[in-house]
């Protein structure tokens, strides 16, 4: 039997060799990828998107939460939004009228994520209780106006950081968790269908913070983690990650597929957003802020979303900024944080309506805001 010291030595040697291989891979990639999206677009004569301050305006402020807003999601069809807050509630809003249609007081108030089911009839949420709770919006409310939980998905051993329904499947949901895994659930039975990571050596090595399902091939999803990597998973083969994407130097808080499903974007505690190519694994572009003149702490990226065409990348930051990046030319075309009626705290979440005509942002200032494209830019 090998002694502990021997094993530790072997482990150290293996780690060193992994790191050196990783470095060689990085160099090789750099050699192969002699440009980035920005430089390529410029050589192609592309010009930046120009944005007038009135092209995207705050048309509504959704007030009602008594704590920081942590998460939001739009319905695929109706213009409804569900939001989750530190006040321990989910609120369902009609984005066109600001009316609240439901308020759900949660048994565990420490909620971190929420999602609408594809049919808009139920919502899911998860948080520090390490579970994902499902509420059917058509359920009869009790005397106090509360909707009973219709199912609780338990099995994670750490907080549930994010949840998303598989497109067009009311009964399939994927969660990511502080226990370093993602799980595919059967919502009807409450059973775990597959666990991604954990025991398997190719899984994340730290908390998983976000996930995004490929809308064109719904068998594929990506997950972003505190281990500074993104991993690509095939729902049919849970035993190993299809690919691991390196590049970030901090927790990856947000990951979103690009509309074409061939690329994905990320937002991180290292202050940057990045664009990766799914198949080659190349990092195509880094979107980094100008260094702060007052030498303040670098704001971190909390949440990202792409416009319908993919030309714009919306990124929320911890200091209350919300940048609209030109995805091709890596320029900031607008900062919603500087506009009138902007949030007064960290932007914690954001998302586009399914038709792409409006953006919703949620903030630690307890409010949500609806930003609508106006003038000639109805949809970008």
């Amino acid at each position: 039997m090998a002694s502990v010291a021997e094993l530790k030595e072997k482990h150290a040697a293996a780690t060193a060799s992994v790191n050196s291989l990783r470095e060689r891979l990085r160099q090789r990639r750099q050699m192969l990828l002699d440009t980035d999206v920005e430089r390529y677009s410029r050589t192609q004569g592309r010009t930046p998107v120009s944005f007038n301050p009135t092209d995207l305006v705050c048309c509504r402020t959704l007030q009602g939460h008594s704590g920081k807003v942590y998460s939001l999601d739009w319905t695929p069809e109706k213009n409804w939004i569900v939001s989750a807050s530190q006040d321990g509630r989910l609120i369902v809003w009609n984005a066109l009228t600001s009316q609240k249609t439901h308020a759900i007081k949660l048994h565990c108030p420490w909620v971190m994520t929420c999602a609408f089911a594809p049919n808009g009839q139920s919502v899911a949420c998860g948080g520090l209780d390490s579970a994902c709770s499902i509420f059917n919006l058509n359920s009869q409310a009790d005397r106090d106006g509360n909707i009973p939980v219709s199912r609780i998905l338990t099995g994670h051993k750490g907080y549930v950081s994010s949840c998303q329904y598989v497109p067009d499947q009311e009964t399939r949901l994927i969660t990511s968790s502080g226990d370093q895994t993602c799980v595919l659930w059967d919502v009807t039975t409450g059973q775990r269908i597959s666990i991604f990571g954990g025991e398997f050596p190719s899984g994340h090595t730290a908390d998983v913070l976000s996930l995004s399902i490929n809308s064109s091939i719904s068998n594929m999803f990506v997950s972003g983690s505190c281990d500074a990597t993104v991993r690509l998973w095939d729902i049919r083969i849970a035993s190993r990650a299809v690919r691991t994407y390196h590049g970030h130097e901090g927790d990856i808080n947000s990951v979103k597929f690009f509309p074409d499903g061939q690329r994905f974007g990320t937002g991180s505690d290292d202050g940057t957003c990045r664009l990766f190519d799914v198949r080659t694994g190349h990092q195509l572009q880094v979107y980094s802020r100008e260094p702060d003149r007052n030498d303040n702490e670098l704001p971190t990226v909390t949440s990202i979303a792409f416009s319908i065409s993919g030309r714009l990348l919306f990124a929320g930051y911890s200091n209350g900024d919300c940048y609209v990046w030109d995805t091709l030319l890596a320029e900031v075309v607008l900062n919603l944080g500087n506009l009138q009626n902007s949030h007064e705290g960290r932007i914690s979440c954001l998302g586009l309506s399914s038709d792409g005509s409006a953006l919703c942002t949620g903030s630690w200032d307890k409010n949500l805001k609806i930003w609508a494209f106006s003038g000639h830019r109805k949809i970008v």
Partner: protein
Amino acid sequence: GSSCSRSHSLSEAETTKNAKSADIDRRILQETKAEQHIHKLLLLGAGESGKSTIFKQIKLLFQTGFDEAELRSYTSVIHANVYQTIKILYEGAKELSQVESDSSKYVISPDNQEIGEKLSDIDGRLDYPLLNKELVLDVKRLWQDPAIQETYLRGSILQLPDCAQYFMENLDRLAEAGYVPTKEDVLYARVRTNGVVQIQFSPVGENKRGGEVYRLYDVGGQRNERRKWIHLFEGVNAVIFCAAISEYDQMLFEDETKNRMMETKELFDWVLKQRCFEKTSFILFLNKFDIFEKKIQKVPLSVCEWFKDYQPIAPGKQEVEHAYEFVKKKFEELYFQSSKPDRVDRVFKIYRTTALDQKLVKKTFKLIDESMRRSREGT
């Protein structure tokens, strides 16, 4: 005409929706008001610092306690604790007998080795059997093996749970046919918390009116990156930080090269610096004083890097107080160093606790209650 009536019915639908939305606003306001008077306390601390025991004490002291069904639910946990203990000791003896210079004293007799293998095997199983007379005989025989007793003395390097001795001394009772765990058994039982648990209580006796209401949260179940969720607790009235002061010579379960006290120091420092707690009061429990008291007579405080400048005085009771005051001062210094200058006036209290000592815990929470009232009246 028809368009008019349609617009009328539309606006009626609209009115209903508006009324519903306003109704939701009212409900949220009511619920928020109803919660306002509740003081929220967050329990933090490194693993095994006694958070869960504090939690159980509160349930016993200020609530209805555990009913028989709840007590019974601890049976399998307690039996599992026995198997864990015996496995750690058995494996520990095997390792010590290989590496230590005076290794012969850790060699278990062949008969007992057989028992050790059998019992260690049980601990690894999901469907472990409950303790019975026969198994207890085995456990006892192994426990009484001189090599195991020698190993037990080295408990602090083996990640041996604090409940080890207590359960070993009560083996017969644990295996009785109609065994129902006692309150004390439950306090000693070790279960890993999952997720987050909360309890609402009022430290004043039930007959006294107008008692302050507290809600305590234990997040011990989240063993991951605290930075990713700590901000959810912005706005709690106070953080109760548990530090097991008896662990100054112990290493972390996850990383056997790291001293537990150093880990506690780093965690306390980190919590103090969190922006979300800038206005939060801090209550520090220097916990496991009972073990500390005994250990200090045998193991010098200076084995821990943080306390390496400690100078012992005379042995005995005086030494215990001296050492305790030294540790307390270290934590105080850390508090003032890690708090921003404009925040040093947030309430900071230190209490000497033994989470297993019901009277002491009761007294401590009454003191906390008084202090919280005073600080509230002062503002």
